[in-house]
């Protein structure tokens, strides 16, 4: 098993390199001249020349690529063009808020999503199941930024129960600030995780080994939890990885709605302000999180599935 983990970790190195290369290519080649993209089409030729010099855009491509990789591994992207701070500092200041929000949303989503899915599967075609299916359909249809806006309108503006913007300073106020954004994201997670649990559990409950368990005389409870859920959670762990990442990407919009600091908002603002170094860093951060989360989820899968664990 240790060997498998090692192999899997080593295997993700080419993936990271591939992702980084694609990011590099996308940013340097696809949109044409980054200088024009940043400075606008009407920029003064002298300004453009200075910009190209500053960012090494006159170097040959392979040198730019190596410099880019060096920047990534030393995590040194220079200074923001708009905000007067090093990019690394901006990232370091914003990342915790995003992680905190993602974590809170995932915790709520999992603690409610899995039991909801189990209930729907066990009570298949009963009112609980139908109710859940309506909930998951609607939950899938409502855009998270809209849900966030509605919660903001209702609970912050009208009722005044929660703050309107920011993320708070001390622990209590941070918890107070995080409630609505986390709930917004968690609703979707509940629908998604619940739906995944339901399908997966229904499929597992139709398997032959579940019939074997029933034939042994296991109670329905034992059949569902000991034999059903444990196998149903295997495919779920893959879905969970995607779910974490989609929460992360959903947090971008939610941070904007609730005017919260965070890495997503940082990136979006950078895109609209054409803050080139921050865009580059933000993209790299998001891409690395994706690779890392997928790696972790793979390892979780290995840990729970003996068919891979035990050779």
């Amino acid at each position, binding site marked *: 098993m240790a060997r498998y983990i*090692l*192999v899997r970790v*080593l*295997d993700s190195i*080419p993936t990271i390199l591939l992702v980084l290369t694609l990011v590099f290519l996308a940013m340097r080649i696809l949109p044409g001249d980054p200088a024009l993209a940043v400075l606008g089409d009407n920029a003064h030729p002298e300004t453009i020349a200075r910009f190209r010099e500053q960012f090494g855009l006159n170097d040959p491509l392979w040198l730019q690529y190596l410099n880019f990789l060096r920047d990534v591994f030393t995590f040194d992207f220079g200074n923001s063009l708009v905000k007067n701070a090093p990019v690394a500092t901006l990232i370091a200041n914003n990342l915790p808020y995003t992680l905190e929000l993602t974590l809170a949303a995932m915790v709520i989503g999992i603690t409610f999503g899995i039991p909801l899915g189990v209930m729907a599967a066990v009570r298949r075609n009963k009112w609980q199941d139908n109710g859940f299916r309506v909930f998951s359909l609607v939950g899938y249809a409502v855009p998270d930024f809209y849900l966030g806006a509605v919660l903001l309108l209702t609970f912050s503006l009208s009722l005044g129960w929660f703050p309107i913007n920011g993320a708070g300073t001390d622990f209590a106020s941070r918890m107070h600030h995080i409630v609505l954004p986390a709930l917004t994201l968690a609703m979707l997670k509940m629908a998604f995780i619940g739906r995944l649990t339901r399908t997966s559990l229904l499929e597992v409950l139709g398997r032959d080994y579940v019939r074997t368990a029933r034939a042994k005389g296991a109670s329905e409870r034992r059949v569902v939890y000991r034999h059903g859920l444990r196998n149903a959670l295997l495919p779920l762990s893959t879905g969970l990885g995607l779910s974490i990442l989609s929460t992360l990407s959903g947090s971008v919009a939610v941070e904007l709605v609730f005017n919260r600091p965070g890495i997503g908002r940082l990136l979006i603002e950078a895109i609209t302000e054409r803050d080139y170094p921050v865009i580059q860093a933000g993209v790299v951060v998001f891409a690395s999180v994706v690779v890392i989360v997928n790696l972790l989820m793979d390892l979780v899968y290995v840990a729970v599935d003996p068919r891979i664990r035990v050779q």
Partner: protein
Amino acid sequence: MNQPIIQAENVGKIFPGGGGGLWRPAPPDVRAVDGVSFEMTRGETLAVVGESGCGKSTLGRLLLRLIEPSSGRVLIEGTDITTLSGAEMRQMRRKVQMVFQDPYGSLSPRRTIAQLIAEPLQVFGLVKNRRQMRERVAELLTQVGLPPSVMDRNPRQFSGGQRQRIGIARALSVDPSFIVADEPVSALDVSIQAQIINLMQDLQQEKQFSFLFIAHDLAVVRHIAHRVAVMYLGQVMEIGTKRQIYEVPQHPYTQALLSAAPEARLDRPYRRIVLKGDVPSPTAVPEGCSFHTRCPLAQGICRVERPPLAQVAPGQMAACHFAAPNSLGVAAAGPSLDKSNSPRARA
């Protein structure tokens, strides 16, 4: 002397374990078929029998070059098909056809019966227009015992046995000289099996194609085969005429297979011996004789030296150091072909 229609010369197939990664060891190769040689003449039926993983289906596909052989040659009417180009091989397919195991999967689901049966005809330009095509399809359907009126239906509307008839009609459409049938009745109900076996037997006698019949069950091929080859882990263990294989089997594995088959009768034709252990994986074929891990007769030499497939009687070959008629004593009285056997012991 009759020129053989099919010659297999030392045919082998190793499926690479594949996969593997930058840091991962590649999984072991699968030795599916290993040095198989035989000949078949016009109008002859050879049955290939063996348990799962013995390579019998792979062998059938190698003969039609649906799988590229790793070694050896396959000659069809004297032409080595392993060296043909893609276009030449396609032309060769007019002479060689296949009937498949799974009657549910082997008919393309979104086509009509007429389209399916006529597909080979159209590929080789054997029908000129639609009317001619429908006439030929009607004729073929009648030959396999289906009413021509069904030709515009969809395969889904047919039962397993009916679909197998359609598959046979499709294979017959180009009048091939060689047909491979891969377990054509194993997916069918018992009462339908007999229909299909009889149908194939009748058609073979009428059209005189050479027929390779692959099965896992020695009883099924009893009626249709002229000769039988028994395979184990990619190798032919024994090959001989029907009479030789059923009456004087020389390889212990053949004898064990005969004795293990459950028979729907009260008296047992062969004394029952039960082999120990599992069939080894084709990824790890034992050294020496591949059967030695389960063979009741295995000696020291069997573990180190692989016995060649050698003649043990005229027309009969066996790959065993200790090949002898009835060496396991399963047919102590000789298999009773005239139903006068002692009542079998009851558990």
